[in-house]
């Protein structure tokens, strides 16, 4: 590869950056930078000049109004990563604390509190068990002997609640009781020493916060495109992470049609960590795919033939998180790995790992970031290695001795203060000795042969640092294209640059060009004029290498989140979910060029942290006529959604796009259905319900059974139903089996005979009567042994039981009786719109079993309340069944005598309800 005969002029200085730092919103516009003589060797005519930036580039236009999903969302809901509100302090103190320089205050106390609440076993497990007896949660005052060894916690809890309510009040004082308690307990109550726990939590919080500000673990991106080998078939492979934890590596065949379409199911590999980066390179017709997670790196080989299965080759694990994995474009099975401690390895599948460098310090000046990167260069034995301060090249044969500086954050490259390297990338497919370096402000193209001086520099003006880059190499006739992508803001920027002047093969183009020249000259369009001149200059140069220049203007592509405005209106909570999903930070980027006769198009894929892959197609517009009113200017009226309206140009394109969205939305709502599992009514397994012996039941089959069986068989043949689906027709809950000698057989017989309803009626009334009898019995016994009764503690538990009881006695039979007699029906579907709501299952009848202290303890009812409950139930049994009252009124009516019968009239209403027999 030839070196350009002349480079653009530039000053060269050494040392730290002079220019003051800071992002400049428009720094990339309106500058040519420098100019260089374009056509050497023509003395007669006037010299022509080409600019470093501002030459005409290719014209690419988006085919659709927004990016379109490629894959359906995977099952299982995505867990969004934390947002600033989760860990920042909110409240009155906030403003006061924010006066400091840091700007953000982490809500340390809240997080620690979360830990105690969410993991009480881990936080207080053993001491909690030890001290269980010494904490009293009741409302009642403690008696003398108990008071010596027991603390009453209720007051303490009240204090805490009061404190919570007064949060943000500037004049809040800690109650002395709380202070006393915390002084007393601070040292010994916690399972993990509080200081240690706090340190760990604080460290984690700081980590989370810095990740929120800038998360570099996804540098490089976790999406790769493996193009088909021959280029003839439009089937390539998309390599992307999937699954809820993003730990499944998927190789998905994708057909590039009007809209890329997934074909077949992907080859999947489950990995033991979240996939951070997927890197791929094609060597000798085979694709090598490197996958990086925090502590593991793996390499897969994908044979060039379509349909061949990817084969895992090797996995390495690291002690510290790996920060980079790149695949050699020169030698099969070679990769480079960097870890956060500053170690760089050359990893060969055949010979293993070779450590090239170990240096925890950064290269050119001190920077705190542990991030390291490395990539390959034009020489297969020379690797570049980078940290935030710059790039060096190392010779793997003598890494200690042979190295040179390729890029330095400093005056050499005209950097700004505070500028840091974000992503270096070897541009070998475009030019073997060129390199791309992005920082948060600018993008640089470097040439190894002229280190330290960028051959191209441009301020990219992106809102976040570009973590992803993808190169689409051009050829002598076409510019190289570089896509830059950011993570949090999902920005995508398309740049074009030329490293080589058009070769003699271009001579076919002037004719084509000239056709447009008069028109553009008439209109005096400077762009068209520049285009004409540069192209002529290009033709005259005849294939020699020219200095690198930026072509065309940078172009913004659609981000995933932008499609939100085009989607049909959703319910607010759906909209929120969708918004959350679509605005998830980007996690990768890849693209491919597709040439099909005259039509050239570019397909850009973008991956989000939620695992969604969206794509967009750009079409190449050949030599530009001085564009009449731009199409896109017309279509960007807010609120309009050309995706779902038929554009005149592509009638069939609309259908597929809109359809794709509908399918994706439907799948998403299915995957992220809201109700968590535990709120569903529990279903009963039949295996638990009937034991084997139960089912064997009466030996021999009666004629009824035979008949039944026959009908069953018939129904099955006809594809009908035995029983119509009805929300109310439920299996009744199991009943205590001791009441009947063989309840199952009687029940089944009754059911088969058709008078099951009657049987149930009988049965429930019987059992209620029986239980009432039993309770009455008990009450009488208790009356006899009457002492002081306590019905203290909270009302709630007793209320529950009361309502359950009343339900059982009043509406029980009504609820449990099936709406209509169970008949074998062959009618079609259940009535449309009948909700699949099942009534809540009945709690078991509160018979003796309920009242036994054993069972009460099992239900988690504290000891001191067990007696209360038992008393209450016994009382209830006496009274006539009455409709349950609304809880509110009951709470005010019910008066509970304290165990000491010292009625403090101020707090508790006097006892009434004589019907209860008190």
């Amino acid at each position, binding site marked *: 590869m030839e070196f350009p005969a002349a480079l653009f002029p530039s000053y060269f200085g050494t040392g730290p950056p002079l220019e003051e730092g800071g992002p400049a919103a428009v720094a990339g516009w309106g500058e040519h930078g420098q100019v260089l003589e374009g056509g050497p060797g023509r003395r007669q005519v006037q010299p022509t000049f080409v600019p470093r930036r501002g030459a005409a580039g290719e014209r690419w236009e988006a085919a659709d109004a927004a990016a379109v999903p490629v894959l359906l969302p995977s099952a299982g809901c995505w867990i969004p990563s934390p947002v600033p509100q989760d860990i920042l302090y909110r409240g009155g103190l906030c403003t006061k604390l924010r006066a400091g320089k840091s700007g953000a205050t982490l809500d340390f106390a809240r997080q620690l509190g979360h830990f105690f609440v969410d993991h009480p076993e881990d936080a207080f497990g053993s001491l909690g068990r030890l001290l269980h007896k010494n904490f009293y949660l009741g409302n009642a005052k403690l008696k003398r002997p108990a008071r010596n060894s027991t603390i009453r916690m209720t007051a303490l809890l009240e204090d805490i609640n009061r404190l919570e309510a007064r949060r943000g009040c500037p004049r809040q004082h800690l109650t002395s009781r709380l202070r006393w308690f915390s002084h007393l307990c601070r040292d010994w109550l916690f399972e993990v020493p509080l200081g240690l726990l706090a340190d760990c939590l604080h460290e984690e919080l700081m980590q989370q916060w810095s990740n929120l500000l800038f998360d570099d673990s996804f540098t490089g991106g976790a999406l790769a495109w493996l193009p088909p080998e021959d280029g003839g078939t439009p089937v390539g492979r998309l390599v992307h992470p999937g699954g809820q934890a993003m730990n499944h590596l998927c190789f998905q065949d994708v057909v590039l049609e009007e809209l890329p379409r997934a074909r077949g199911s992907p080859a999947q590999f489950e990995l033991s960590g979240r996939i951070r980066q997927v890197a791929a390179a094609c060597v000798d017709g085979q694709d090598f795919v490197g996958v990086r997670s925090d502590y593991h790196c793996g390499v897969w080989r994908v044979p060039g033939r379509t349909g061949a299965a990817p084969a895992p080759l090797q996995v390495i694990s690291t002690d510290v998180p790996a920060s980079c994995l790149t695949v050699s474009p020169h030698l*099969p099975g070679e990769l480079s790995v960097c870890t956060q401690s500053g170690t760089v390895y050359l990893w060969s599948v055949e010979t293993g790992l070779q450590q090239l460098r170990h240096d925890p310090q950064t290269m050119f000046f001190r920077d705190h970031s542990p991030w390291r990167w490395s990539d390959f260069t034009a020489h297969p034995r020379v690797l570049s290695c980078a940290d935030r301060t710059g790039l060096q090249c190392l010779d793997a044969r003598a890494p200690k001795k042979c190295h040179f500086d390729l890029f330095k954050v400093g005056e050499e490259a005209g950097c700004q203060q505070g500028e840091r390297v974000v992503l270096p990338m070897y541009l070998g497919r475009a030019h073997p000795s060129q390199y791309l370096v992005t920082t948060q402000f600018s993008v640089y193209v470097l040439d190894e042969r002229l280190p330290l001086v960028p051959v191209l520099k441009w301020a990219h003006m992106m809102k976040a640092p570009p973590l992803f880059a993808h190169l689409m190499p051009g050829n002598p006739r076409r510019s190289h294209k570089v896509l830059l992508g950011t993570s949090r803001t999902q920005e995508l920027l398309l740049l074009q640059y030329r490293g080589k002047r058009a070769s003699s093969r271009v001579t076919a183009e002037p004719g084509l060009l000239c056709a447009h020249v008069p028109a553009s000259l008439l209109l005096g369009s400077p762009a068209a004029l520049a285009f004409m001149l540069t192209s002529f200059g290009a033709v005259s140069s005849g294939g020699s290498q020219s200095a690198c220049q930026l072509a065309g203007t940078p172009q913004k592509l659609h981000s995933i989140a932008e499609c939100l405005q085009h989607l049909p209106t959703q319910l607010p909570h759906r909209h929120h979910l969708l918004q959350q999903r679509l605005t998830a930070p980007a996690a990768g980027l890849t693209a491919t060029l597709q040439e099909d006769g005259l039509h050239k198009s570019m397909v850009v894929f973008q991956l989000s942290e939620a695992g969604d892959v969206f794509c967009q197609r750009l079409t190449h517009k050949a030599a530009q006529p001085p564009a009449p009113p731009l199409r896109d200017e017309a279509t960007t009226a807010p609120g309009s959604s050309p995706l779902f309206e038929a554009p005149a140009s592509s009638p069939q394109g609309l259908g597929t796009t809109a359809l794709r969205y509908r399918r994706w939305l439907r799948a998403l709502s299915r995957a992220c259905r809201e109700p968590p599992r535990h709120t569903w009514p529990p279903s009963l397994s039949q295996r638990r319900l009937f034991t084997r012996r139960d089912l064997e039941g009466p030996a021999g089959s009666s004629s009824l059974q035979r008949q039944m069986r026959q009908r069953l068989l018939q129904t099955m043949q006809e594809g009908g139903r035995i029983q119509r689906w009805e929300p109310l027709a439920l299996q009744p809950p199991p009943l205590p089996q001791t009441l009947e000698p063989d309840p199952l057989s009687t029940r089944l017989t009754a059911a088969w005979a058709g008078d099951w309803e009657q049987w149930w009626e009988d049965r429930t009334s019987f059992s209620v009567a029986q239980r009432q009898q039993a309770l009455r019995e008990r009450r009488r016994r208790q009356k006899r042994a009457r002492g002081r009764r306590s019905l203290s503690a909270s009302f709630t538990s007793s209320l529950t039981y009361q309502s359950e009881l009343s339900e059982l006695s009043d509406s029980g039979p009504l609820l449990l009786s099936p709406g209509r007699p169970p008949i074998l029906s062959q009618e079609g579907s259940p009535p449309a719109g009948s909700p699949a709501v099942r009534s809540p299952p009945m709690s078991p009848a509160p018979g003796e079993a309920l009242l036994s202290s054993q069972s009460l303890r099992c239900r988690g009812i504290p000891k001191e309340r067990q007696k209360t409950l038992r008393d209450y139930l016994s009382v209830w049994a006496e009274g006539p069944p009455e409709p349950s009252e609304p809880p509110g009124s009951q709470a005010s009516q019910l008066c509970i005598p304290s165990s000491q019968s010292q009625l403090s009239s101020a707090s508790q209403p006097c006892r009434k309800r004589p019907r209860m027999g008190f």
Partner: protein
Amino acid sequence: SSHEHKLNFKKSKEACLNYIQDALLQKQWKRAAEFLTCYVESLEKDYSRERVGPSEMIWRIGTEILWHHSQSSMKEFSCFMEQMKTLGVKRYLKVCLEHVFHLLCNGQIDEAYQNLSLAESWRFGEQTAIQDKEMKLIQAYRGLLDYYSWSKQKNILLEHGEDGFSDLAVEQEMHGYFRKAAVNLKEIIKIPGVWDIFVKCYVDLLEFYGDHNEARQVLNEYAYNSKFPANPNAHVYLYQFLKRQGESKNSLISALKILHDIVPSHELMIDFNTMLQKSKKRKKRRLGLEVIFAALDYAGWKENAKAWSCLVRQVKQIVSSEKHLDWIKQEWNPRKEWWPAFHFSRYLAKRNWQENKSLSYEKALVAGILLGKDCKYFKYVSRQGCKAQLKRFRMLKKFVNRHDPVHLRISG
């Protein structure tokens, strides 16, 4: 209140800027222009203390829009630029320079020259370091344009000279251009930087007037001053100058040796190798082998048939004479681990054969000598060659078979 007003104003300014940015990035020049007319208002109430003030933003955005807007003209552009020059004193030179660049790219050389002269005479208080640099660049570009005028006059003179007719006025004018160009160009190339185009022009001037010593000094300074970046072109220019001067082989070789040390993959390495191969001295031929091996290490040279034929020539010579096999051994040893996969895989044999038969011939010969006749690359190519009944490939097979034991001695 006024504070709130400021805040709101700032917010709406930012929003407007965002709209403009969005439009620019989507090539919606008209929309951007409309927003920019609103943004101009921000000039009146510029409360910002930011590094980049609104006047610079308007300059940059306006320029970009005028470059691309379908209805803009050069005249409008120049008018806009003149206004922008008066907007900010600090940026005056920068805007001038950019204006000149645009004129140059659009072929308006004379206007550009006028603008440069105007900018050169601009004075305002004390100059900052950046302004100083910009002023030097302005002078250098004026020098460059003077050089082009000089070169034009020179060509006229040369043509007329052929007719045996000389024009004194034209000659006078030419010398005038020379003086103006030389003064300015000489200034800038003293400062560390990449000044390829200026150096080339300056040396051309000096050579024309026979000041070879000065030219040599300038080129030496440009190539060897450690304050300058390691620019391969500096060495190339020096080498070309020495060649034009008819310098001895030795000085050419030493110039190229330094280039080889800096950039082993430079395209001049082929010339260097040919030069060294022809040398009588063993040491130089040895260096030649090293140079060509080193060049072929690079991915950019992988399919360079010329380089491979250089290597073949030298390897053939060494193998046939059976002398200095240790040279090959020394070069081959550090490469035998990775060259087979890098150059001589079966996949590459297939592809090279399909795309470039002569390249595959050269590579097969090297592979056969270095790896023996059983190597995949050689086997594939020689079989294909024999199948296609190419005489050359039969000879190749014979040669490799005859020298098959060599590979054992090399790798042993």
